[in-house]
């Protein structure tokens, strides 16, 4: 029976990948290169698309910020998958779970702040408006 004591060496781990770890075998440089190139092309495409969306008259004005936000989130996803190699594979479960938790906190902080502050702004009338109302 081969029971191991102590930490495994780097070469031995087979069921977990560190975040950022390229899941290809190191001998296959071409595959790694192609993946990075694909990431670069997709990210550039999305960047160009957001710059285009900011200028085009084709998109309904008030929808442009939403379009840009969606493109930004998509590009962040591309970066995570192709550059940071965060995937949904079982050997990446811990990394993806940590990311999901981080995403949750980011959403709470950003959406919560905007929600609270918009209401605060809405309920705080300026002095001029108060004078108007008292008349």
């Amino acid at each position, binding site marked *: 029976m081969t029971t191991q004591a102590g*930490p495994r060496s780097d070469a031995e781990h*087979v069921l*977990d990948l560190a975040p950022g770890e390229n899941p290809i075998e190191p001998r296959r440089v071409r595959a790694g290169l192609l993946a*990075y190139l694909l990431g670069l092309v997709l990210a550039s495409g999305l*960047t160009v698309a957001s*710059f285009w969306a900011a200028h085009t008259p084709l998109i309904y004005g008030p929808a442009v910020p939403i379009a840009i936000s969606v493109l930004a989130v998509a590009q962040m996803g591309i970066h995570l998958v192709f*550059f940071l190699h965060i995937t949904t594979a079982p050997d990446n479960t811990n990394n993806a779970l940590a990311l999901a938790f981080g995403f949750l906190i980011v959403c709470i902080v*950003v959406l919560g702040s905007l929600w609270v502050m918009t209401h605060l702004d809405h309920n705080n009338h300026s002095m001029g408006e108060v004078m108007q109302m008292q008349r």
Partner: protein
Amino acid sequence: MSARDVVPVAHLRQSDPYKPGHGPGGAGGHVYATGHGEGGPASPRVVVGYGFWIFLLSDFIMFSAFFASYAVLSEQTAGGPSARELFDLHDTALQTAFLLASSFACGLASLAVDQRSQPWTQIALFITGLLGLGFLLLEIREFADFVGRGAGPSRSAFLSAFFTLVGCHGVHVTAGLLWLGTMMAQFLAKGFRQNIGHRFLCFSLFWHALDIIWVGLFSLVYLVGSLPP
């Protein structure tokens, strides 16, 4: 350098992670099962990388707080210049291109490190640093330009939030460049030792993460800020 120091490339995977009952298995095979204790603790590479990943996520959360304060304050110009009047999207496009190319070059560097190729590692890291430096210089020029036009961080709540958010990213890039320099020196002086490899894994995570933050910055600050009212 002893033979023990030069490990074979760390992340060779023999098994398909999607295979049911994944793991090498087979006759005489020892199944390492995460959480089952039998395989022992995870390898240092996984532990180091995972710890750094947690740090990066906390960094994202810090940036999200700055993003939130910017989003709340972006219209509070106190009679000063607005985002629309200040931003030059040509510079932003150039900065974006620099940082994306830098991130790509960093990816190539990690391929070179996997191959234990000293010259390619140094070349790729040098290009990574050069592009990062280009980004930083453009940002410094932009900040100096704003301050010169009387739009410093003390001018309005909008500008305070802007300089805090974008400046914090700039500080991260600066720190990343210093780290990059030390990584190049370490590869040169110490070779592809296991612990140097761990440090480089953290660095590449850091550098790619900075690009992710920049995606949020150029989209939500610069592009949305330049939209007509």
